[in-house]
Structure formats: structure tokens, C-alpha cells
């Protein structure tokens, strides 16, 4: 622990652990229900709406918000922005935990989770976009694990292994960006198959590009947002180098995010033009689309720009939260709100509380592991015996 700030003891029964405990017990009970009563017992999924809150939130939003890993790694390792080095390890940790939560949540949604390796081992269905998504997510999970390993090895103290892991970082980062580009865009491409079900304002041949560009914005905002949270609760764990560069990271990433959001707004408008759906902007879904595009893309972009020009870090941190919210809204739109938009109201889907319960359970498990790692492993500070080596 660095001497500069006092160590905060964390008693076992502090507020966070109690709430986490409650959620986890509920979660375990729901898990029991899920794997005894089947999907029908815990969800409102049905004939017309096979994909519900888990796929929309845990899978799509989870993957998009865990994009911090590859964006930060690319910025620091490949584009050589060493000043953001302090943000690298927390971002890799968020990415790794994010993808683990995605995989964990997938176990609940899929009918036979033990058959998840079948596409690669037993009978590949290569015409499906989901095959590509599955392959890339699996590979990227291993890449993230390897990128995360130096921190863990430092904690364990396996020096020789750590040196090999460190030498791989550049290769892993490149592979990380390749795989992320693939599956972020392919998560969107999965919906290319259903032009008759997704609302024309959201359905467009550009969906893969929309999903990829928005994932960059999500990644950058998530790093800022995660930095804010880490500052609130783990300030004592941070070494002075980390503390000093925190504001600088926020500004740098804010500028990047603003830049990417501008591009994302432009291609969203191009998407409407491509499908010639201007007349749809007048309908109810049209207004909702305008809310999403102007309220959750252009507004954050504008606020980020103001924040960077005025050096107002507080504004940037709040806008990061707004962008994260925007990405969640977009993913929920594509999978739930604007999907099956042409069906009558009684065949539409609304999540069952148990589905939301299990999602919260998955997130809580993730947070607990995050706390465990951050309070022990050299994430927010540099391990004493590897002061200047990497």
C-alpha cells in the first residue's frame, strides 16, 4: 500500500457486501428455478420473442460496454499514448470481467449450456453470423485472460512467467482489436437476417458499422465511467502516478469519445438516408429514434466537446455516464423495443422480474470479483518490484 494515503479497512459486513449478499442469494434461488423449471419458469420469452432481457442487456450491452479493454489497449500499446498508461490495467480488468459476465449470463439464456462448444467442435454452422460472434467472443476471452495475466502473475510473484506474458502484450493487443472489431460488428450483423421484424429506422445494411463505432464510444466512456467509480471507492488503492493522470485520462478519452460520437451520429443519419426512411421520422418510433440519435449520441458528443474545451472533468464524467446509457438504449432498441414492432401489443415482450433478477445477480458477482481483484492485485498501483519495467 502506498504510504501517501491512509489505508481504508474494509470490514466483511460493510454496506456493499450486505447488498451483494442479498442479490447473490436471490440469484442462486433463481438459478435453481431456471435449471429445474426451464426457461419458461423464469422468463416471459415466448413463440414471438425468443430473445429477451438477457440477450439484450447482458449479452449485447455487456459486450459493448466491455469494449474499454481493446480501445484502451489499442490507444496505449499500438497508438503509443503512454500518458494513458495508468488507465490500461483497470480497462483490461473491466474488459476481462465484462466478457466473463457475458459468458456467465449466456449459460442462463441458452437451452443446453454444456453444448456451447458444439459449434467449434461438433458441427460448425459457418453460414451463421452467430458462429462468427461465438468464435470471436471465445477467442477474445482468452486474449483478455492473457492480457490480464501479468497483473495476476505479479500478485502471485511468478517472475519468469510474467516476463513472457509482458512480451506478448503487443501481439495480444493487435489480436484483441481484430477480434473485437469482428464480434462487435457481427453482434449487429446478426440482425441483418430479419428485415421484416426490426423497425426500418434501426434496420440498415450499416448495422455492423453502427455497432462497431458505437462500441468504441462505449469503450472510451466506460473507461472514464469506471475510473470515476474506482476513484469514489478505491482511492486509497491508487498510487500517486495513477491519481495524477486520472483527470488527464478523462480529458483525453473524452476528446476521443466526442470524436467517435460525431462519426457515429453521421453514419446514423446516413443510415436513414440509405433506406430513404425520412417519412418514418414522423411516426412514434420516429420520435423515439430522434430521441436516441439527438439525445443519446449528438448531445453527449456536444457535451464531451464542451467538457474538453472548458477542461471541465466533472462534465466529462457525467457525459460518459450518459453515453453508456445511450449505448444501452440503442442495444435495447435493436433487440427489444423496436424488434417485432409490427406485432400487436399483446404479442410484444416485457421482461419478467426474474430475468432482471438474474441479470443483477450476474453483475453483482462481477462486482464482487472486481473488488476482490482491485483490493489485492496491482491494478491501481504499480507492484513495488516491477516499478519501472513495463
Amino acid at each position, binding site marked *: 500500500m502506498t504510504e501517501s494515503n491512509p489505508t481504508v479497512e474494509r470490514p466483511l459486513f460493510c454496506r456493499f457486501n450486505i447488498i451483494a449478499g442479498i442479490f447473490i442469494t436471490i440469484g442462486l434461488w433463481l438459478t435453481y428455478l431456471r435449471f429445474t423449471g426451464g426457461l419458461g419458469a423464469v422468463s416471459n420469452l415466448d413463440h414471438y420473442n425468443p430473445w429477451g432481457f438477457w440477450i439484450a442487456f447482458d449479452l449485447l450491452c455487456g459486450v459493448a460496454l466491455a469494449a474499454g479493454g481493446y480501445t484502451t489497449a489499442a490507444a496505449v500499446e499500438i497508438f503509443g499514448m503512454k500518458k494513458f498508461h495508468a488507465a490500461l490495467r483497470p480497462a483490461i480488468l473491466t474488459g476481462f470481467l465484462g466478457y466473463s459476465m457475458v459468458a456467465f449470463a449466456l449459460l442462463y439464456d441458452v437451452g443446453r449450456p454444456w453444448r456451447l462448444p458444439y459449434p467449434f467442435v461438433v458441427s460448425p454452422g459457418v453460414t451463421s453470423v452467430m458462429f462468427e460472434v461465438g468464435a470471436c467472443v471465445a477467442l477474445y476471452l482468452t486474449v483478455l485472460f492473457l492480457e490480464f495475466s501479468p497483473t495476476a502473475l505479479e500478485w502471485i510473484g511468478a517472475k519468469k512467467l510474467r516476463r513472457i506474458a509482458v512480451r506478448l502484450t503487443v*501481439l495480444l493487443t493487435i*489480436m484483441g482489436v481484430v477480434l473485437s472489431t469482428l464480434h462487435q460488428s457481427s453482434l449487429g450483423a446478426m440482425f441483418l437476417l430479419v428485415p421484416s421484424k426490426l423497425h426500418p429506422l434501426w434496420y440498415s445494411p450499416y448495422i455492423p458499422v453502427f455497432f462497431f463505432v458505437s462500441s468504441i464510444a462505449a469503450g472510451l466512456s466506460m473507461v472514464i465511467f469506471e475510473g470515476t467509480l474506482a476513484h469514489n471507492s478505491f482511492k486509497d488503492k491508487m498510487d500517486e502516478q495513477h491519481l495524477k493522470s486520472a483527470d488527464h485520462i478523462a480529458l483525453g478519452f473524452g476528446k476521443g469519445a466526442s470524436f467517435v460520437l460525431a462519426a457515429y451520429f453521421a453514419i446514423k443519419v446516413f443510415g436513414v438516408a440509405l433506406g430513404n426512411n425520412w417519412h418514418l421520422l414522423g411516426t412514434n418510433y420516429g420520435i423515439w429514434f430522434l430521441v436516441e440519435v439527438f439525445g443519446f449520441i449528438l448531445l453527449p458528443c456536444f457535451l464531451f466537446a464542451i467538457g474538453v474545451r472548458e477542461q471541465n472533468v466533472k462534465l466529462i464524467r457525467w457525459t460518459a455516464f450518459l453515453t453508456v446509457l445511450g449505448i444501452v438504449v440503442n442495444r435495447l432498441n435493436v433487440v427489444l423495443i423496436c424488434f417485432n414492432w409490427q406485432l400487436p401489443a399483446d404479442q410484444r415482450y416485457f421482461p419478467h422480474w426474474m430475468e432482471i433478477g438474474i441479470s443483477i445477480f450476474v453483475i453483482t458477482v462481477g462486482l464482487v470479483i472486481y473488488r476482490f481483484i482491485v483490493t489485492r492485485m496491482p491494478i491501481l498501483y504499480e507492484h513495488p518490484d516491477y516499478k519501472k519495467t513495463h
Partner: protein
Amino acid sequence: MNEYIHTLQEFMTQTKGMLYLLSAGYLISFVAFWRFLHGRDKEDNPKVQAKK
């Protein structure tokens, strides 16, 4: 070859399957090629640097 492929689904299964194999092969060989390309760079090579 075409008379054996009757549906677009079959065509895509074959082409995409082949593409995935080729891409996997390419990625692995790319790493090897990278190391081969940068093998003798002086700066990067810590041993060389130490000697100088």
C-alpha cells in the same frame, strides 16, 4: 463443381468454412512472419542492445 451445389446455403457453407480455415492459418502465420521480419532489428533486440 457447380452441379453439386444446389442451394445458396450449401455454397455459403463451403465458402465460409474455407474462409475461416484460411483466416486462422493466416493469423498464425502472420505472427511467425512478424517475428521473422523483426528478428534482426538491433534496437528491438535486448541482447543486441546490451552488447552495444
